[in-house]
């Protein structure tokens, strides 16, 4: 047809050399660079959320403390949780998805590199918009669960809740777009021979996480949209004075909120399942059981939401159902724990820092899991609900669980990311400081909870008997900060003068260790063919055998071939994802601005054409 008459496409030139400079980062579509962007920004948000935590502990360090006003304290509590969950832990997992998944499945990039860049920019803008609430002193202060009707305009008149809604809507778009991308990548981009049941466990956990995100986040998006409409367009979804059901928000929120917990922990399970076999020098015990147990956890995770609502008077039938389904989840979780123990059993265990964090994860996570089963029991929950017991539990599973696993992953894959090793001694010091400080901080919260201390309380009176353990927890929190500081120092030292890592410092089993550290832009000069679950181990061992028997070794994962010779064809950089991300963020951020055109926020209306220009230009530029 008339293809020849088309105007020349607008496109940035494809970089010839390894690109550098700010512009190359703004336009990158390389999954590894996007992974680094995700990793660095989520770590900065992790530090910000950590500062919130320290402020909370400062306030609670002694009774009758008037360091911060209750309003600001509420802000720190809300932003600590919101930052850690949506801007630190989830995106840090996504950083690993980005960097590691394509390498492990033997792909050159994700299925949609520009959509990937779009996800990152949307995430970053959402996080920055949420954090900018500090600048205008309108920190969200209603709690990370945002319970309506408390959050409707009548009871929360300020911009605080609007910042929370707008920030989370933008972050939600990034999360859903990323989940779709990784789902398609894992389903469709695996190297020849890598059947689903040969995938590394980390890729399996990523796949299950994306499914959880795809099914849970839309519910939250709708809940937030309804709240936004209540606050800006006069709807009455949550206004119980006008007949609305005051529990509607709680149902919608927790139908999202409980799967969200598994969205946070599944990637951690994946990281641990990669590290334990390598540092035990044994294949993972019970691979198929691990996969099925994870699916069971994900499936059951959608049927337990009302255990967050045991004090709402739902009645014995609902209580029984949700208590049983909650306890049922302990079964597949136990299967996973025993499979890790089975892998460790009889292995030749190598206690390098990644392994230390992995083993530490198992211990602390089991404690958190057990306290979880305890308040899955309805009468026990009535005692523990809204007490510091819950705070202890959530930190045992999210810090002792997810964060330990993420630190394990950072120490494990750092040589692959940077090409240099982290210092082993400093890594050990980081782990032991963190482990001890973690338990000093959070174990006393069990005592505080059973002694009746409510959560989210900014000032407590003297004579309650809570003083000592609160002081201990505060000291522990600062020791935790010190352990994070040790890691940061280690990272900087490694970047400046770390030992070169080589391709495969840990004798890894998966494909990412077959290629250079850091990997070349195209990852694999020749796409590898996979014939087993631990492809690199099989290859290395058969190579050794071949040498012993006097045959010429033959590697399937070639890394030396000239990429031009192999006709590797990489996608062009593009700035349209960034433009589209700005447009999308404007659409939501308009609700924070004072300028209106009739009933509609002006910036929102301006954002629509920006988004459309971004998407249209994105569609018409050549991808390859």
């Amino acid at each position, binding site marked *: *047809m*008339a293809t020849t008459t*088309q105007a020349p*496409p607008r496109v940035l030139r494809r970089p010839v050399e390894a690109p550098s400079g700010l512009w190359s980062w703004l336009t990158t579509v390389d999954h590894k660079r996007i992974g680094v962007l995700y990793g660095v920004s989520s770590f900065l948000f992790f530090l910000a959320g950590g500062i919130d935590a320290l402020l909370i502990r400062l306030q609670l360090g002694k009774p009758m403390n008037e360091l911060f006003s209750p309003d600001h304290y509420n802000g720190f509590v809300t932003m600590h949780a919101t930052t850690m969950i949506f801007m630190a832990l989830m995106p840090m997992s996504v950083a690993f998805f980005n960097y590691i998944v394509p390498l492990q499945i033997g*792909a*050159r*990039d*994700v*299925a*949609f*590199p*520009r*959509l990937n860049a779009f996800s990152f920019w949307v995430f970053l803008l959402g996080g920055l918009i949420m954090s900018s609430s500090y600048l205008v002193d309108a920190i969200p202060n209603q709690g990370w669960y945002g319970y309506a009707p408390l959050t409707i305009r009548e009871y929360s008149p300020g911009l605080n809740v609007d910042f929370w809604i707008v920030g989370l809507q933008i972050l939600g778009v990034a999360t*859903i777009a990323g*989940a*779709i*991308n990784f*789902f*398609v990548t894992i*389903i*469709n*981009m*695996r190297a020849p021979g*890598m059947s689903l049941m040969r995938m590394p466990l980390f890729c399996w956990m990523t796949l299950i996480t994306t499914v959880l995100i*795809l*099914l*849970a*986040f*839309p*519910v939250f*998006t*709708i*809940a937030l949209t*309804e709240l936004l*409409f209540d606050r800006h*367009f*006069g*709807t*009455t*979804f949550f*206004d119980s004075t*006008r*007949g*609305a059901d005051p529990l*509607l928000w709680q*149902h*919608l929120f927790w139908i999202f909120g409980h799967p969200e917990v598994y969205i946070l922990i599944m990637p951690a399970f994946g990281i641990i399942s990669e590290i334990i076999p390598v540092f035990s020098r044994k294949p993972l015990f019970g691979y198929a059981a691990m996969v099925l147990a994870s699916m069971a956890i994900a499936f059951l995770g959608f049927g337990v939401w009302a255990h967050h609502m045991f004090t709402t008077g739902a009645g014995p039938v609902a209580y029984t159902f949700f208590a049983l389904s909650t306890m049922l989840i302990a079964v597949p979780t136990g299967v996973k724990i025993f499979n890790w123990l089975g892998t460790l059993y009889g292995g030749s265990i190598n206690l390098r820092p990644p392994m230390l964090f992995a083993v530490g994860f198992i211990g602390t996570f089991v404690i958190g899991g057990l306290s979880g089963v305890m308040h899955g029991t309805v009468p026990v929950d009535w005692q523990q609900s809204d007490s510091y017991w819950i705070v202890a539990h959530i930190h045992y599973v999210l810090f002792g669980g997810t964060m330990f696993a993420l630190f394990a992953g950072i120490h494990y894959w750092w040589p692959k990311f940077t090409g240099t090793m982290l210092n082993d001694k400093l890594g050990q010091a980081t782990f032991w400081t963190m482990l001890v400080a973690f338990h000093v901080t959070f174990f006393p919260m069990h005592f505080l909870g059973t002694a009746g201390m409510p959560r989210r309380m900014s000032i407590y009176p003297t004579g309650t008997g809570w003083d000592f353990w609160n002081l201990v927890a505060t000291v522990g929190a600062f020791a935790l900060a010190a352990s994070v500081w040790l890691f940061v120092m280690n990272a900087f030292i490694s970047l400046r003068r770390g030992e070169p890592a080589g391709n495969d410092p840990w004798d890894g089993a998966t494909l990412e260790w077959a290629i250079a550290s850091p990997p070349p832009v195209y990852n694999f000069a*020749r*796409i590898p063919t996979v014939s087993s679950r631990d492809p690199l181990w099989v290859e290395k061992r058969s190579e050794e055998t071949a040498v012993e028997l006097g045959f010429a070794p033959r590697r399937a994962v070639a890394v030396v071939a000239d990429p031009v010779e*192999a*006709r*590797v*064809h990489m*996608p062009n950089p593009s700035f349209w994802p960034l433009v589209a991300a700005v447009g999308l963020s404007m659409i939501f951020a308009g609700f924070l601005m004072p300028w209106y055109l009739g009933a509609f926020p002006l910036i929102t209306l301006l954002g629509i054409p920006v988004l459309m220009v971004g998407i249209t230009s*994105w*569609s018409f*530029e*050549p*991808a*390859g």
Partner: protein
Amino acid sequence: MARAIAHDEQGRLLPQAGHGDSDIHDHGHDDHGGEHPTSTGLNNVKVLMWTFIASECLLFGSLISTYLAVEGRTIPNTPGPELFDIPYTSVSAFVLLFSSLSMVLALAGLQAGDQRQLRIWLFVTAALGLVFLGGQYYEFSTFYFEEFWLDKNFLGSSFFLLTGFHGAHVTVGVIWLLALWLYSLRYGIAPEKSLLVEISGLYWHFVDVVWIVIFAVVYLIPYSRIEGGGH
């Protein structure tokens, strides 16, 4: 590098949907520059669309659940389902359903290499979508003048957010179809690029199917409860 150039030429016809963003495998012998093999054999963009639709189901599902949670709890003396004009909405539902047929005919035309059939049916599909939207506009304004609106009561809130959200989806679909129609008028769409039309069709059929659910749940069920059938 010869292959990269060949790609640019073929890529001129909406490359992102042709072989996805994912045109980065070499697979050595694969020189025709068309579809690249994927693990499942399904095109990436098609899997993306199905995944997106799965997620959309939960978006609509949450809105419908919200509606069902409040439906039947109408406050006395406030307007509600008795305003629904079932024959009128049935006609517009039929219009939307018929547009799914025309969408299929457009794709069939393209796959048979008949550009004229493609253009006609693309335009008909978009036009039927516009008729539906016009009908929804008229319906909304009628309700508005009869004091049924999103800030009147929670039934109104959930009704207008749900149907409005669906209307926004139809609007996006109409813009998409019109863009394809203009593109096919200007440049034509090669039969091997039929995926472009197929993807928009998937979206369009989904939006139609959702309307069947909305029509049954939101219009027919509450209406059936009203004694004497309303008007």
